[in-house]
Each structure stands twice: as structure tokens, then as C-alpha cells.
């Protein structure tokens, strides 16, 4: 589509289609660049100064062959998929995506594929060795989630409430939660039960590690949201933070999100349980968790910050989680 050639090819000989068909790139498309932006391609000549009154208006490059009359701004678009394989002119810095290791969001550490592979292997071993290394579980999730995270993001975008969460990007942190008000809510409300869960298990939402190794800013938010919602999962499922409770929540999350880290945790977590707990897990907790996971809608699509006053039972019914079995975990 971009008919640029090397230096020496007369510009009038080329037919850049955008000049011929100005509406080829529709305005609502993400590729459309507003005309007022200046062309930053250094190979193009400088735009001619706006003519004094009485002079002929700019031809748009069709007659004079000078492409930088302001219309060139429309050339600063991403190439459509069809022509991406075609050879691009060398000097066109503006058409290339930024290469190299640049941090995309605060806390981002750009990594090469080899480093990601080593991180995935190392963090899996470290997490198995010491299950209390939450940072290793987090790193495993980030490095292995390259297929599941885009699916999750699309599910969030396609749901109205999930789309709102995606736009507003709320964070669950001690600084954003009004602890006194949440504590004052009636028993059975989501906020009250969440605070009770945090206090009983002596955990805090601030201990969640921020995403470091995800190479996309949106996917980093998705996995950050997943981590922050994990505690709310414990509350909704009624599971404490001991090994058995964590395994049950991991099974639920594995079915809901499909993240390989959850699948691995669900598969290898029971290794550390004793026989009695394994029996409870296999007979009562797992069937319930699996059924709930398949029946429930996507848990990331619930705007929890606006539902603190809603009761846990009604929220469970709304999402589709069955009532937990009456077993002591």
C-alpha cells in the first residue's frame, strides 16, 4: 500500500494509493492519523509553507509530486496485514513498530524469549520447592500466560461490566479501600466478609507483586486484576489460605481463566496434602469447585468495588457459584 521506493525514483512515478483515494483509511479506524500531525519521515522533503492569499491551494501531492503537504500524515499508519510481509523501504522509521527493550509500563522488565523460558522453569521449581514463595508463583503466571491472557482480555472487553473495569483500571489496595466503612457493613455483605477474610488469615492486598515480565500493558493489567481478585475468590468460595483452600481456589481459577500457572498449581498442589485432606478434596471440594467453575461467568468481569454492600450469597448466585459444601477446610 505504501508505494515508497528508494532514492532516485521520481516521486511522480509512484502512485501512493492514499493520495488517490483519500478515504481509503476510514476515520474511525485505529490506523487513521489526523491530518494535523506533521510527517516525521526524514526522507520526505519539508512541507511547503502555506501559500499567501491568492495562491493556488495545495494539490496534495498529486501534481507537484511533493508528498509532504500535510496529507503525508495519513501515510503514518500501520501497514495492513496483507502487505506487512512486503519489503519496506529502509529509511522509514515512522512505519516500524518500536523495537528493542523499552519498558512499557512502570515496573516492566523487558526480557528475551530465552530469559522467559528460564524464568518459567526456575520459578516453577522454586514454587514447588517452597510454596510460600508467592513471587515465584506470580512470575510463573506472567511468563506462561502468553496464550491465556489475550483470551481473558478479550472476554473482559466483550462484557459490558468487564469493559468498564478495563477502561477505569481500578486497583484493590489498602490505600484505595475504606477499611472503616467496609468493617461497618452488615455481616454477610461482600465488604464485611472480605475484611473478615483478610483479618482472619492475616493477609493484605498490598502484598501482591506488580506485573514485571508481561510485554503488553493491557495484559499486565489483566494479570494484575486477576491477582487482586484472588482474595475475593477466597471470600466468595469460602476457602481459607491453608494449602487445601489454596488448591480448591486454584482449581476454580484454572477452569475460569485457563492460565497455565493455575493449571500447574491445581495439578501439583495436592502433592503436599496428607491423605485425609486429599480424600476431602477428591470427594467433596473438587467436584463442587469444578462444577462452579464451569457454571460461573467470568469472575474478572465483576466490578467488585461497586458491590461491597451486596451480600455474598446473592453475588454467588449472580455469578453462578454453587454454595460451598459444609466441610471444615
Amino acid at each position, binding site marked *: 500500500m505504501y508505494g515508497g521506493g528508494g532514492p532516485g525514483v521520481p516521486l511522480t512515478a509512484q502512485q501512493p494509493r492514499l493520495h488517490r483515494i483519500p478515504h481509503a483509511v476510514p476515520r474511525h479506524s485505529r490506523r487513521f492519523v489526523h491530518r494535523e500531525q506533521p510527517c516525521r519521515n526524514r526522507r520526505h522533503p519539508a512541507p511547503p509553507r502555506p501559500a499567501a492569499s491568492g495562491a493556488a491551494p495545495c494539490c496534495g501531492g498529486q501534481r507537484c509530486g511533493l508528498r509532504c503537504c500535510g496529507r503525508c500524515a495519513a501515510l503514518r499508519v500501520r501497514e495492513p496485514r496483507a502487505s506487512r510481509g512486503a519489503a519496506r523501504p529502509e529509511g522509514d522509521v515512522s512505519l516500524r513498530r518500536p523495537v528493542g527493550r523499552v519498558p512499557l509500563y512502570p515496573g516492566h*522488565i523487558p526480557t*528475551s524469549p*530465552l*530469559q522467559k523460558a*528460564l*524464568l518459567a522453569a*526456575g*520459578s516453577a*521449581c*522454586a514454587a514447588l520447592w517452597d510454596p510460600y*514463595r508467592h*513471587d*515465584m508463583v506470580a*512470575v510463573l503466571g506472567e511468563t506462561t500466560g502468553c496464550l491465556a491472557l489475550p483470551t481473558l482480555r478479550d472476554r473482559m472487553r466483550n462484557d459490558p461490566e468487564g469493559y468498564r473495569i478495563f477502561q477505569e483500571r481500578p486497583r484493590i489496595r489498602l490505600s484505595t479501600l475504606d477499611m472503616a466503612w467496609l468493617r461497618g457493613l452488615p455481616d454477610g455483605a461482600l465488604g464485611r466478609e472480605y475484611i473478615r477474610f483478610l483479618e482472619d488469615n492475616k493477609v493484605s492486598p498490598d502484598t501482591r507483586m506488580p506485573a*514485571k515480565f508481561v510485554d503488553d500493558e493491557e495484559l499486565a493489567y489483566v494479570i494484575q486484576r486477576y491477582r487482586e481478585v484472588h482474595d475475593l475468590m477466597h471470600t466468595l468460595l469460602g476457602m481459607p489460605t491453608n494449602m487445601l483452600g489454596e488448591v480448591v481456589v486454584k482449581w476454580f481459577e484454572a477452569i475460569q481463566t485457563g492460565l497455565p500457572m493455575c493449571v500447574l498449581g491445581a495439578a501439583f498442589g495436592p502433592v503436599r496434602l496428607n491423605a485425609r485432606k486429599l480424600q476431602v478434596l477428591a470427594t467433596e471440594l473438587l467436584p463442587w469447585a469444578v462444577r462452579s467453575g464451569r457454571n460461573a461467568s467470568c469472575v474478572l468481569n465483576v466490578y467488585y468495588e461497586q458491590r461491597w454492600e451486596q451480600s455474598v450469597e446473592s453475588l454467588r448466585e449472580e455469578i453462578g457459584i454453587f454454595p460451598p459444601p459444609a466441610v471444615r477446610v
Partner: protein
Amino acid sequence: MAAGLRPGRALLSRRRGALCALLRAARGLAARPETHFGFQNVTEAERREKIYQVFENVAEKYDVMNDSMSLGIHRVWKDILVHKMNPSPGTLLVDVAGGTGDIAFRFLNYVRSVRERQLQQKLRNHQNLSWQEISKSYQEEKSNPLGDSQVVVCDINKEMLKAGMQKAQHLGYSEGLSWVLGNAEELPFDDDKFDVYTIAFGIRNVTRIDLALQEAYRVLKPGGRFLCLEFSHVSNPLLSRLYDLYSFQVIPVLGEVIAGDWKSYQYLVESIRRFPPQEELKAMIEDAGFLKVDYQNLNSGIVAIHSGFKL
């Protein structure tokens, strides 16, 4: 005449312009001296602060990380350093940036074994000793196993010293060891005090290497030896590429997995690349006044031991 004056005036104004530019540069340099932290450019104060934080974070897992990054080879390097030093009993050693005390412990072991051998040699040589003399020599061995050798471990970072003191207690080293908090660029010792000055994997983190070398010269006795063990430049191209690959791909990953700290180990590998190579460091040591300066490459340049004498 006017034509003659004009080029002269132009020359003068050009010289004045150059002088102004030079003054401006000098003023700027004095206000914000630029140095490096890994591959970033920072001011000197920022660099000191950042390096302090790096070692504060890694202090607890320092030894574990050393073993895993170098696959245990760092122990061999430190052993070679102490063997090169070949201390005799009665030596006073200052181990700067000695942190967790690896060199200090090896020095004490070496001196103890040399002392034992000395006493055994003495017993063997004097064939007809009386019982009192024999028992006196055994008592000497028990009362003075180190032969008055002492080592002072000096480090700028409190956490590293704390880790070192705990390790000493754990391994049972109590005699002949002292721990001092101090800056290598400004040592809290008198002139002409020590027989040997060592700095193992520490001079890379010093902001002004020339000041550290001058301090080393100051605190050493005449006849004292300066020893520096540090990562250096690999000349073999194939090994250099493998080393780079390992450094930049594997070491930060190890740091994240074992210590939970990627950035400190990224700083480590970057600082190795920014450190002057063997010949340049040799020239800097000679500039500080040391004589008979030489270096020995270990593992074809991955690590080098520089040695100099204050004569």
C-alpha cells in the same frame, strides 16, 4: 590597517568564545559529576546511594547467589588469592569491601595452618628438648594459634557486615577478627598500618577508584602488598560471547528466582562490563604509587588478580 585589525579581533573573539565554553563546561562538571551505574548515567551521589541499596537487598542471599552464579568457582578464585598472598603468622590484613568475610576466613585458616606447621617444624628440629620445653611449645600452640595475625574487615554497608558477623559466629571464628564500618575512599585507619590490603570483588562498586587506590597506598606499611581480585575483560572472542550470553541471560534470572531481585543482578553484570580492563587498572594502580604492579588472569580473563607493592 583596518583589514589587519579585523582578523586579529576575530581571532581574539574566537579565543574568548572558546574560553567561555571551557569555563561553562568546567562549572557544569563541578556541579553534577557524571558517572555510571551499570549502563545508566547517574551522578556520584546517586551512584553511592543505589549501590548501597543493591547490597542492602542482596546481603542475606549473597553467598548463596555467589555459589549459584559462579557454580562454586568463586571459592577457587578466593583460595588462589589467599595462596598468592601467602601470609605468614604475624601479618596484619585489611580486607576492604570484605562484607561477608570470605577472604578474612580463608586468611585465618591459612595462617593457622602455617603456624601449626611452624610449631611442628620447631619440635622436629630440636631433638633433645626437655619435657618443660615440649609442653611450653604445646601451650604456645594453644594460646597463640594465629601467631598474632589479625584481619580487619572493612565495609561500607551495615547489612553486609551484619551478615559477615553472623557467618563468623556460625563458623566459629572469633580470634584475630574485627569488623569496621568504613568507606574505601576514606578509610578510618592511620597511615602505614597494614601489611596486606585486599579488595575482592569490591573495587568495581567504588565510585572513585583512584581515591580508593590512594587510600590503599596510605594505610599500607612500606613493603606492604596491595591485592585486588575483580572481574575483568575476556579477550578470547568465543569465550567472551558465551560469557556475555550467560551473564545477561542467565544471571538476572537466577537473581529473580533465588533472591527475588532482578535489578540488583542486572546491575552486577552491567557494572562488570563498565569496569576498566586489566591494563587500564594496572596503570591506575601504578598512578597511585605502587611498584612492581602485575596481574594474573584466572579463567582466561573472567577474573584477574592485580598485585602491587608499596616500596
